[in-house]
Protein backbone atom coordinates (compact mmCIF):
# COMPACT_ATOMS: atom_id res chain seq x y z
CA UNK A 1 0.00 0.00 0.00
CA UNK A 2 2.85 2.37 0.82
CA UNK A 3 4.34 1.90 -2.64
CA UNK A 4 0.98 2.38 -4.29
CA UNK A 5 0.47 5.65 -2.41
CA UNK A 6 3.97 6.84 -3.29
CA UNK A 7 3.56 5.96 -6.95
CA UNK A 8 0.18 7.63 -7.37
CA UNK A 9 1.25 10.67 -5.36
CA UNK A 10 4.39 11.02 -7.46
CA UNK A 11 2.28 10.81 -10.62
CA UNK A 12 0.54 14.09 -9.68
CA UNK A 13 3.85 15.84 -10.27
CA UNK A 14 3.76 14.65 -13.90
CA UNK A 15 1.19 17.18 -15.16
CA UNK A 16 3.07 20.04 -13.50
CA UNK A 17 6.33 19.01 -15.13
CA UNK A 18 4.61 18.28 -18.43
CA UNK A 19 2.91 21.68 -18.54
CA UNK A 20 6.01 23.55 -17.43
CA UNK A 21 8.14 21.59 -19.87
CA UNK A 22 5.88 22.11 -22.84
CA UNK A 23 5.40 25.82 -22.23
CA UNK A 24 9.12 26.31 -21.63
CA UNK A 25 10.29 24.34 -24.65
CA UNK A 26 7.84 25.88 -27.05
CA UNK A 27 7.93 29.36 -25.60
CA UNK A 28 11.49 30.19 -24.61
CA UNK A 29 12.75 31.11 -28.09
CA UNK A 30 9.91 33.61 -28.54
CA UNK A 31 10.95 35.67 -25.56
CA UNK A 32 12.96 38.64 -26.69
CA UNK A 33 13.13 42.33 -25.88
CA UNK A 34 10.62 43.23 -28.59
CA UNK A 35 8.21 40.59 -27.32
CA UNK A 36 7.76 42.69 -24.18
CA UNK A 37 7.89 46.12 -25.79
CA UNK A 38 5.78 45.76 -28.94
CA UNK A 39 2.05 45.30 -29.26
CA UNK A 40 0.34 42.40 -30.95
CA UNK A 41 0.59 42.36 -34.77
CA UNK A 42 -2.54 42.29 -36.89
CA UNK A 43 -3.51 38.94 -38.33
CA UNK A 44 -2.62 40.26 -41.79
CA UNK A 45 0.90 41.24 -40.79
CA UNK A 46 1.38 37.91 -39.11
CA UNK A 47 0.12 36.09 -42.18
CA UNK A 48 2.58 38.00 -44.39
CA UNK A 49 5.44 37.09 -42.07
CA UNK A 50 4.45 33.44 -42.08
CA UNK A 51 4.25 33.42 -45.88
CA UNK A 52 7.71 34.97 -46.07
CA UNK A 53 9.00 32.37 -43.63
CA UNK A 54 9.92 35.02 -41.06
CA UNK A 55 9.13 35.05 -37.34
CA UNK A 56 5.93 36.89 -36.47
CA UNK A 57 6.73 40.51 -35.55
CA UNK A 58 5.45 42.17 -32.39
CA UNK A 59 4.76 40.98 -28.87
CA UNK A 60 2.43 41.23 -25.93
CA UNK A 61 3.19 44.69 -24.56
CA UNK A 62 -0.46 45.73 -24.93
CA UNK A 63 -1.46 42.77 -22.76
CA UNK A 64 1.15 43.43 -20.11
CA UNK A 65 0.19 47.10 -19.86
CA UNK A 66 -3.52 46.22 -19.69
CA UNK A 67 -2.99 43.57 -17.04
CA UNK A 68 -0.93 45.96 -14.91
CA UNK A 69 -3.45 48.82 -15.21
CA UNK A 70 -6.45 46.66 -14.34
CA UNK A 71 -4.61 44.83 -11.59
CA UNK A 72 -3.37 48.11 -10.15
CA UNK A 73 -6.85 49.59 -9.98
CA UNK A 74 -8.27 46.38 -8.51
CA UNK A 75 -5.56 46.20 -5.83
CA UNK A 76 -6.03 49.85 -4.82
CA UNK A 77 -9.69 49.19 -4.01
CA UNK A 78 -9.66 45.55 -2.91
CA UNK A 79 -6.76 45.76 -0.45
CA UNK A 80 -8.04 48.50 1.89
CA UNK A 81 -11.67 47.38 1.72
CA UNK A 82 -10.66 43.75 2.15
CA UNK A 83 -8.45 44.51 5.15
CA UNK A 84 -11.16 46.58 6.86
CA UNK A 85 -13.77 43.92 6.21
CA UNK A 86 -11.39 41.20 7.43
CA UNK A 87 -10.73 43.26 10.57
CA UNK A 88 -14.48 43.55 11.09
CA UNK A 89 -14.86 39.76 10.92
CA UNK A 90 -11.92 39.18 13.27
CA UNK A 91 -13.23 41.71 15.82
CA UNK A 92 -16.88 40.63 15.82
CA UNK A 93 -16.76 36.90 15.18
CA UNK A 94 -19.78 36.16 17.37
CA UNK A 95 -22.02 38.87 15.99
CA UNK A 96 -24.92 37.76 13.78
CA UNK A 97 -24.19 40.26 10.99
CA UNK A 98 -20.53 39.16 10.92
CA UNK A 99 -21.62 35.56 10.48
CA UNK A 100 -23.71 36.56 7.49
CA UNK A 101 -20.81 38.54 6.02
CA UNK A 102 -18.53 35.58 6.60
CA UNK A 103 -20.96 33.29 4.83
CA UNK A 104 -21.30 35.71 1.89
CA UNK A 105 -17.50 35.88 1.62
CA UNK A 106 -17.46 32.12 1.12
CA UNK A 107 -20.27 32.45 -1.39
CA UNK A 108 -18.42 35.04 -3.44
CA UNK A 109 -15.17 33.10 -3.25
CA UNK A 110 -16.91 30.03 -4.65
CA UNK A 111 -18.69 31.91 -7.44
CA UNK A 112 -17.35 30.85 -10.85
CA UNK A 113 -15.29 33.59 -12.47
CA UNK A 114 -17.40 33.51 -15.63
CA UNK A 115 -20.36 34.68 -13.52
CA UNK A 116 -18.29 37.52 -12.10
CA UNK A 117 -17.79 38.44 -15.76
CA UNK A 118 -21.52 38.46 -16.45
CA UNK A 119 -22.20 40.55 -13.37
CA UNK A 120 -19.59 43.12 -14.22
CA UNK A 121 -20.95 43.27 -17.75
CA UNK A 122 -24.41 44.06 -16.36
CA UNK A 123 -23.14 46.49 -13.71
CA UNK A 124 -20.45 48.36 -15.59
CA UNK A 125 -20.31 47.62 -19.31
CA UNK A 126 -24.02 48.17 -19.98
CA UNK A 127 -24.36 51.47 -18.06
CA UNK A 128 -21.06 52.79 -19.49
CA UNK A 129 -22.17 51.68 -22.94
CA UNK A 130 -18.92 49.95 -23.72
CA UNK A 131 -16.12 47.63 -22.68
CA UNK A 132 -13.38 49.24 -20.61
CA UNK A 133 -10.39 48.78 -18.37
CA UNK A 134 -12.59 49.98 -15.49
CA UNK A 135 -14.98 47.10 -16.06
CA UNK A 136 -12.11 44.62 -16.16
CA UNK A 137 -10.67 45.94 -12.94
CA UNK A 138 -14.07 45.75 -11.22
CA UNK A 139 -14.24 42.06 -12.15
CA UNK A 140 -10.73 41.42 -10.81
CA UNK A 141 -11.52 43.40 -7.67
CA UNK A 142 -14.63 41.32 -6.94
CA UNK A 143 -12.58 38.16 -7.27
CA UNK A 144 -9.77 39.42 -5.04
CA UNK A 145 -11.96 40.74 -2.22
CA UNK A 146 -12.94 37.44 -0.58
CA UNK A 147 -9.35 36.18 -0.70
CA UNK A 148 -8.01 39.29 1.03
CA UNK A 149 -10.84 39.34 3.56
CA UNK A 150 -10.18 35.74 4.55
CA UNK A 151 -6.42 36.07 4.85
CA UNK A 152 -6.74 39.26 6.92
CA UNK A 153 -9.35 37.71 9.20
CA UNK A 154 -7.36 34.52 9.72
CA UNK A 155 -4.07 36.31 10.38
CA UNK A 156 -5.66 38.69 12.88
CA UNK A 157 -7.37 35.81 14.65
CA UNK A 158 -4.17 33.87 15.25
CA UNK A 159 -2.36 36.83 16.81
CA UNK A 160 -1.99 36.26 20.55
CA UNK A 161 -4.84 37.96 22.42
CA UNK A 162 -2.25 39.41 24.81
CA UNK A 163 -1.05 41.76 22.07
CA UNK A 164 -4.40 43.47 21.69
CA UNK A 165 -4.99 43.48 25.45
CA UNK A 166 -1.58 44.99 26.10
CA UNK A 167 -2.37 47.77 23.67
CA UNK A 168 -5.75 48.44 25.23
CA UNK A 169 -4.30 48.26 28.75
CA UNK A 170 -2.07 51.20 27.83
CA UNK A 171 -5.18 53.21 27.18
CA UNK A 172 -5.20 53.00 23.40
CA UNK A 173 -8.57 52.96 21.69
CA UNK A 174 -9.48 50.10 19.42
CA UNK A 175 -8.68 51.95 16.22
CA UNK A 176 -5.17 52.86 17.34
CA UNK A 177 -4.48 49.40 18.72
CA UNK A 178 -5.57 47.97 15.35
CA UNK A 179 -3.45 50.43 13.36
CA UNK A 180 -0.33 50.43 15.53
CA UNK A 181 -0.27 46.95 17.02
CA UNK A 182 -2.51 44.38 15.36
CA UNK A 183 -2.17 45.26 11.67
CA UNK A 184 1.63 45.70 11.83
CA UNK A 185 1.90 42.32 13.55
CA UNK A 186 -0.38 40.76 10.94
CA UNK A 187 1.42 42.40 8.03
CA UNK A 188 3.20 39.23 6.90
CA UNK A 189 0.04 37.17 6.66
CA UNK A 190 -1.93 39.92 4.96
CA UNK A 191 0.85 40.61 2.45
CA UNK A 192 1.07 36.92 1.58
CA UNK A 193 -2.70 36.87 1.14
CA UNK A 194 -2.56 39.82 -1.24
CA UNK A 195 0.19 38.17 -3.30
CA UNK A 196 -1.85 34.98 -3.56
CA UNK A 197 -4.95 36.95 -4.50
CA UNK A 198 -3.01 38.67 -7.28
CA UNK A 199 -1.64 35.39 -8.58
CA UNK A 200 -5.17 33.98 -8.50
CA UNK A 201 -6.75 36.68 -10.65
CA UNK A 202 -3.88 37.57 -12.96
CA UNK A 203 -4.51 34.51 -15.12
CA UNK A 204 -8.28 34.92 -15.22
CA UNK A 205 -9.60 35.03 -18.73
CA UNK A 206 -13.34 34.50 -18.79
CA UNK A 207 -14.34 37.55 -16.70
CA UNK A 208 -12.16 39.81 -18.84
CA UNK A 209 -13.68 38.59 -22.10
CA UNK A 210 -16.97 40.34 -21.31
CA UNK A 211 -15.50 43.38 -19.60
CA UNK A 212 -12.10 44.49 -20.92
CA UNK A 213 -12.69 42.81 -24.28
CA UNK A 214 -9.15 43.22 -25.60
CA UNK A 215 -7.35 45.68 -27.85
CA UNK A 216 -4.36 45.42 -30.13
CA UNK A 217 -2.94 48.80 -29.11
CA UNK A 218 -0.92 49.73 -26.08
CA UNK A 219 -3.42 51.84 -24.21
CA UNK A 220 -3.40 53.80 -21.00
CA UNK A 221 -6.97 55.12 -20.95
CA UNK A 222 -9.24 53.41 -18.48
CA UNK A 223 -12.58 54.01 -20.21
CA UNK A 224 -11.72 52.14 -23.41
CA UNK A 225 -11.35 48.44 -24.18
CA UNK A 226 -7.98 47.15 -23.08
CA UNK A 227 -6.02 43.96 -23.47
CA UNK A 228 -4.57 41.59 -20.87
CA UNK A 229 -2.07 38.75 -21.11
CA UNK A 230 -4.62 35.94 -20.68
CA UNK A 231 -6.93 37.63 -23.18
CA UNK A 232 -4.09 37.64 -25.71
CA UNK A 233 -3.50 33.93 -25.17
CA UNK A 234 -7.18 33.34 -25.88
CA UNK A 235 -6.92 35.50 -29.02
CA UNK A 236 -3.83 33.66 -30.25
CA UNK A 237 -5.53 30.34 -29.57
CA UNK A 238 -8.42 31.31 -31.82
CA UNK A 239 -6.42 32.92 -34.63
CA UNK A 240 -4.39 30.45 -36.70
CA UNK A 241 -2.12 33.24 -37.92
CA UNK A 242 -1.07 34.24 -34.42
CA UNK A 243 -0.64 30.80 -32.96
CA UNK A 244 3.14 31.11 -32.87
CA UNK A 245 2.86 33.79 -30.18
CA UNK A 246 0.82 31.62 -27.86
CA UNK A 247 3.71 29.91 -26.10
CA UNK A 248 5.76 32.97 -25.36
CA UNK A 249 2.72 34.65 -23.82
CA UNK A 250 1.88 31.52 -21.83
CA UNK A 251 5.44 31.16 -20.61
CA UNK A 252 5.43 34.75 -19.38
CA UNK A 253 2.09 34.33 -17.59
CA UNK A 254 3.03 30.97 -16.10
CA UNK A 255 6.39 32.14 -14.78
CA UNK A 256 4.79 35.27 -13.34
CA UNK A 257 2.06 33.34 -11.53
CA UNK A 258 4.32 30.58 -10.24
CA UNK A 259 6.93 33.07 -9.01
CA UNK A 260 4.23 35.00 -7.13
CA UNK A 261 3.01 31.73 -5.63
CA UNK A 262 6.43 30.56 -4.53
CA UNK A 263 7.31 34.01 -3.15
CA UNK A 264 4.10 34.07 -1.14
CA UNK A 265 4.78 30.60 0.21
CA UNK A 266 8.36 31.46 1.08
CA UNK A 267 7.38 34.70 2.83
CA UNK A 268 4.62 32.97 4.76
CA UNK A 269 7.13 30.42 6.03
CA UNK A 270 9.71 33.07 6.88
CA UNK A 271 7.26 35.28 8.76
CA UNK A 272 5.81 32.37 10.68
CA UNK A 273 9.09 31.70 12.44
Amino acid at each position, binding site marked *: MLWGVCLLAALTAVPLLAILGEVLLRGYDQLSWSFFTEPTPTAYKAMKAIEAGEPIPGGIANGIVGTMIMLGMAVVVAVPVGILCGAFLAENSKNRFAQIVSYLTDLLQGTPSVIVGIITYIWVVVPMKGYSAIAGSVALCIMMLPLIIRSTEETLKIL*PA*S*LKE*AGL*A*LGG*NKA*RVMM*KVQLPAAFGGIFTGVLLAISRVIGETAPLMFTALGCSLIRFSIDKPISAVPLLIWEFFNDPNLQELIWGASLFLLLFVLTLNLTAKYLAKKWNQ
Partner: protein
Amino acid sequence: MESVKPILEFKKTCVSYTKQTMAVKYVSAAIEQNTITAIMGPSGCGKSTLLRAVNLMHNLYQNIRVDGEILLNGENILSMEPIDVRRRIGMVFQRPAPFPTMSIYDNVLSGFALNGIKLSKAEKDATVERCLRSVALWDEVKDVLNKKGTFLSGGQQQRLCIARALAMKPDVLLMDEPTSALDPIATKHIEELLLELQKEVTILIVTHNMGQAKRISSKSMFMYLGELVEYGDTETMFTNPSDERTKAYLTGKMG
Protein backbone atom coordinates in the same frame (compact mmCIF):
# COMPACT_ATOMS: atom_id res chain seq x y z
CA MET B 1 -8.66 52.58 62.20
CA GLU B 2 -6.06 54.53 60.32
CA SER B 3 -7.17 57.58 58.45
CA VAL B 4 -4.93 57.11 55.41
CA LYS B 5 -7.09 57.59 52.36
CA PRO B 6 -6.88 54.50 50.14
CA ILE B 7 -5.88 54.98 46.51
CA LEU B 8 -7.93 52.02 45.34
CA GLU B 9 -10.96 50.59 47.01
CA PHE B 10 -13.11 47.58 46.14
CA LYS B 11 -16.67 47.85 47.35
CA LYS B 12 -18.74 44.68 46.97
CA THR B 13 -17.12 44.05 43.62
CA CYS B 14 -18.63 41.13 41.71
CA VAL B 15 -17.67 39.70 38.31
CA SER B 16 -19.82 37.17 36.48
CA TYR B 17 -19.24 35.38 33.18
CA THR B 18 -22.71 33.84 33.03
CA LYS B 19 -25.97 34.76 34.70
CA GLN B 20 -25.81 31.85 37.13
CA THR B 21 -22.22 31.85 38.35
CA MET B 22 -19.98 34.55 39.81
CA ALA B 23 -16.25 34.40 39.37
CA VAL B 24 -15.68 37.13 41.93
CA LYS B 25 -18.12 37.52 44.82
CA TYR B 26 -18.61 40.70 46.83
CA VAL B 27 -14.97 41.62 47.31
CA SER B 28 -14.38 44.65 49.54
CA ALA B 29 -10.90 45.90 50.31
CA ALA B 30 -8.96 49.15 50.47
CA ILE B 31 -5.49 49.42 48.95
CA GLU B 32 -3.09 52.00 50.37
CA GLN B 33 -0.86 54.16 48.27
CA ASN B 34 2.72 53.05 47.52
CA THR B 35 2.28 49.53 48.75
CA ILE B 36 2.62 46.17 47.09
CA THR B 37 -0.44 44.03 47.58
CA ALA B 38 -0.27 40.38 46.61
CA ILE B 39 -3.36 38.49 45.55
CA MET B 40 -3.03 34.77 46.16
CA GLY B 41 -5.21 31.75 45.83
CA PRO B 42 -5.54 28.43 44.03
CA SER B 43 -6.06 28.55 40.27
CA GLY B 44 -9.60 29.45 39.30
CA CYS B 45 -10.19 31.39 42.50
CA GLY B 46 -10.88 34.62 40.62
CA LYS B 47 -7.67 36.49 41.40
CA SER B 48 -6.87 37.35 37.78
CA THR B 49 -10.52 38.12 37.14
CA LEU B 50 -10.52 40.62 40.00
CA LEU B 51 -7.31 42.20 38.75
CA ARG B 52 -8.65 42.57 35.21
CA ALA B 53 -11.75 44.26 36.56
CA VAL B 54 -9.60 47.13 37.81
CA ASN B 55 -8.56 48.41 34.42
CA LEU B 56 -11.84 47.45 32.81
CA MET B 57 -10.45 44.67 30.66
CA HIS B 58 -13.79 42.93 31.09
CA ASN B 59 -15.45 45.67 29.07
CA LEU B 60 -13.93 44.08 25.98
CA TYR B 61 -16.17 41.05 26.27
CA GLN B 62 -19.88 41.50 25.99
CA ASN B 63 -21.01 38.70 28.27
CA ILE B 64 -18.94 39.64 31.32
CA ARG B 65 -20.63 41.73 34.00
CA VAL B 66 -18.89 43.69 36.73
CA ASP B 67 -21.04 44.92 39.63
CA GLY B 68 -20.40 46.84 42.82
CA GLU B 69 -17.89 49.63 42.90
CA ILE B 70 -14.16 50.05 42.40
CA LEU B 71 -12.95 53.46 43.53
CA LEU B 72 -9.78 55.09 42.26
CA ASN B 73 -9.04 58.11 44.49
CA GLY B 74 -12.68 58.03 45.49
CA GLU B 75 -14.05 57.96 41.95
CA ASN B 76 -15.94 54.92 40.68
CA ILE B 77 -13.95 53.34 37.85
CA LEU B 78 -16.90 51.34 36.59
CA SER B 79 -18.68 54.47 35.46
CA MET B 80 -15.62 56.04 33.85
CA GLU B 81 -14.41 55.84 30.25
CA PRO B 82 -12.29 52.69 29.89
CA ILE B 83 -9.59 54.59 28.03
CA ASP B 84 -9.18 57.16 30.83
CA VAL B 85 -9.03 54.40 33.42
CA ARG B 86 -6.44 52.42 31.50
CA ARG B 87 -4.20 55.46 31.12
CA ARG B 88 -4.11 55.81 34.91
CA ILE B 89 -3.87 52.11 35.69
CA GLY B 90 -1.11 50.20 33.96
CA MET B 91 -1.02 46.46 33.46
CA VAL B 92 1.68 43.85 32.97
CA PHE B 93 0.70 40.44 31.73
CA GLN B 94 1.78 36.91 32.47
CA ARG B 95 3.67 36.41 29.22
CA PRO B 96 5.94 39.27 28.24
CA ALA B 97 4.25 40.88 25.25
CA PRO B 98 6.40 43.62 23.77
CA PHE B 99 4.86 44.76 20.49
CA PRO B 100 6.70 42.62 17.94
CA THR B 101 6.84 45.22 15.18
CA MET B 102 8.18 48.04 17.36
CA SER B 103 11.73 48.76 18.45
CA ILE B 104 12.66 48.87 22.13
CA TYR B 105 12.49 52.66 21.96
CA ASP B 106 9.03 52.65 20.38
CA ASN B 107 7.80 49.99 22.77
CA VAL B 108 8.51 52.25 25.74
CA LEU B 109 6.67 55.09 24.01
CA SER B 110 3.84 52.92 22.66
CA GLY B 111 1.42 54.19 25.32
CA PHE B 112 1.76 57.71 23.93
CA ALA B 113 1.43 56.52 20.34
CA LEU B 114 -1.66 54.52 21.23
CA ASN B 115 -3.19 57.52 22.92
CA GLY B 116 -2.34 59.84 20.06
CA ILE B 117 -0.10 61.98 22.29
CA LYS B 118 2.69 63.71 20.37
CA LEU B 119 6.01 64.23 22.15
CA SER B 120 9.07 66.18 21.09
CA LYS B 121 12.26 64.27 20.38
CA ALA B 122 13.78 65.50 23.63
CA GLU B 123 10.74 64.44 25.65
CA LYS B 124 10.80 61.05 23.97
CA ASP B 125 14.49 60.50 24.70
CA ALA B 126 14.03 61.59 28.31
CA THR B 127 11.00 59.34 28.83
CA VAL B 128 12.72 56.33 27.31
CA GLU B 129 15.80 56.80 29.45
CA ARG B 130 13.84 57.49 32.65
CA CYS B 131 11.62 54.43 32.21
CA LEU B 132 14.34 52.05 31.14
CA ARG B 133 16.49 53.24 34.06
CA SER B 134 13.69 52.67 36.53
CA VAL B 135 13.38 49.07 35.38
CA ALA B 136 17.19 48.68 35.38
CA LEU B 137 17.26 47.94 31.67
CA TRP B 138 18.95 51.10 30.43
CA ASP B 139 22.55 49.92 30.70
CA GLU B 140 21.75 46.69 28.93
CA VAL B 141 19.85 48.13 25.97
CA LYS B 142 20.98 51.74 25.56
CA ASP B 143 23.04 50.83 22.48
CA VAL B 144 20.37 48.71 20.80
CA LEU B 145 17.30 50.90 21.28
CA ASN B 146 16.40 50.52 17.63
CA LYS B 147 16.32 46.75 17.76
CA LYS B 148 13.01 44.92 18.05
CA GLY B 149 11.90 44.28 21.62
CA THR B 150 11.41 40.64 20.81
CA PHE B 151 15.21 40.11 20.57
CA LEU B 152 15.52 40.53 24.34
CA SER B 153 15.50 37.67 26.84
CA GLY B 154 12.24 36.84 28.63
CA GLY B 155 13.22 38.73 31.77
CA GLN B 156 14.33 41.76 29.78
CA GLN B 157 11.12 41.66 27.75
CA GLN B 158 9.06 41.69 30.92
CA ARG B 159 11.03 44.63 32.26
CA LEU B 160 10.45 46.39 28.96
CA CYS B 161 6.73 45.81 29.41
CA ILE B 162 6.93 47.30 32.91
CA ALA B 163 8.81 50.30 31.50
CA ARG B 164 6.12 50.66 28.86
CA ALA B 165 3.45 50.77 31.56
CA LEU B 166 5.47 53.20 33.73
CA ALA B 167 5.91 55.62 30.83
CA MET B 168 2.27 56.63 31.21
CA LYS B 169 2.94 57.52 34.88
CA PRO B 170 0.09 55.37 36.18
CA ASP B 171 -1.29 55.66 39.72
CA VAL B 172 -1.62 51.91 40.02
CA LEU B 173 0.25 49.06 38.33
CA LEU B 174 -1.54 45.74 37.93
CA MET B 175 0.59 42.66 37.45
CA ASP B 176 -0.85 39.31 36.48
CA GLU B 177 1.68 36.63 37.48
CA PRO B 178 4.45 38.66 35.83
CA THR B 179 7.21 36.18 36.63
CA SER B 180 5.49 32.87 36.00
CA ALA B 181 7.04 32.58 32.54
CA LEU B 182 10.53 33.55 33.72
CA ASP B 183 13.52 31.69 35.14
CA PRO B 184 14.48 32.12 38.84
CA ILE B 185 17.22 34.67 38.19
CA ALA B 186 15.03 36.88 36.02
CA THR B 187 12.30 36.51 38.65
CA LYS B 188 14.65 37.73 41.36
CA HIS B 189 15.56 40.79 39.29
CA ILE B 190 11.90 41.66 38.78
CA GLU B 191 11.15 41.24 42.48
CA GLU B 192 13.97 43.60 43.45
CA LEU B 193 12.70 46.01 40.86
CA LEU B 194 9.17 45.97 42.26
CA LEU B 195 10.43 46.75 45.76
CA GLU B 196 12.12 49.82 44.28
CA LEU B 197 9.11 50.80 42.20
CA GLN B 198 6.63 50.93 45.05
CA LYS B 199 8.02 54.34 45.88
CA GLU B 200 6.55 55.61 42.60
CA VAL B 201 3.47 53.52 42.10
CA THR B 202 0.99 51.35 43.94
CA ILE B 203 1.32 47.76 42.85
CA LEU B 204 -1.30 45.03 42.82
CA ILE B 205 0.22 41.69 41.91
CA VAL B 206 -1.44 38.35 41.32
CA THR B 207 0.88 35.51 42.13
CA HIS B 208 0.68 31.80 42.70
CA ASN B 209 4.10 31.86 44.27
CA MET B 210 3.77 32.20 48.03
CA GLY B 211 7.46 32.86 48.50
CA GLN B 212 7.18 35.78 46.13
CA ALA B 213 4.22 37.22 48.00
CA LYS B 214 6.13 36.93 51.25
CA ARG B 215 9.28 38.49 49.80
CA ILE B 216 7.79 41.58 48.23
CA SER B 217 4.32 42.43 49.48
CA SER B 218 3.32 44.35 52.56
CA LYS B 219 -0.35 43.39 52.25
CA SER B 220 -1.85 40.17 51.00
CA MET B 221 -5.24 38.97 49.86
CA PHE B 222 -6.22 35.36 49.87
CA MET B 223 -9.06 34.43 47.54
CA TYR B 224 -10.91 31.17 47.34
CA LEU B 225 -13.81 30.27 45.04
CA GLY B 226 -14.33 33.91 44.12
CA GLU B 227 -14.45 35.18 47.69
CA LEU B 228 -11.92 37.33 49.45
CA VAL B 229 -11.22 35.10 52.42
CA GLU B 230 -8.60 37.14 54.14
CA TYR B 231 -6.88 40.49 53.64
CA GLY B 232 -4.24 41.98 55.84
CA ASP B 233 -0.56 42.40 56.56
CA THR B 234 1.47 39.79 54.71
CA GLU B 235 3.52 39.15 57.82
CA THR B 236 0.46 38.35 59.89
CA MET B 237 -1.16 36.24 57.22
CA PHE B 238 1.87 34.00 56.86
CA THR B 239 2.54 33.61 60.57
CA ASN B 240 -0.97 33.58 61.92
CA PRO B 241 -3.72 33.25 59.35
CA SER B 242 -7.17 33.85 60.77
CA ASP B 243 -9.06 31.58 58.39
CA GLU B 244 -8.73 27.82 58.15
CA ARG B 245 -8.77 27.96 54.32
CA THR B 246 -5.88 30.41 54.24
CA LYS B 247 -3.97 28.17 56.58
CA ALA B 248 -4.68 25.12 54.45
CA TYR B 249 -3.47 26.94 51.34
CA LEU B 250 -0.34 28.32 52.94
CA THR B 251 0.63 24.95 54.36
CA GLY B 252 0.19 23.31 50.98
CA LYS B 253 -2.92 21.34 51.81
CA MET B 254 -4.84 23.07 49.05
CA GLY B 255 -3.54 23.41 45.55
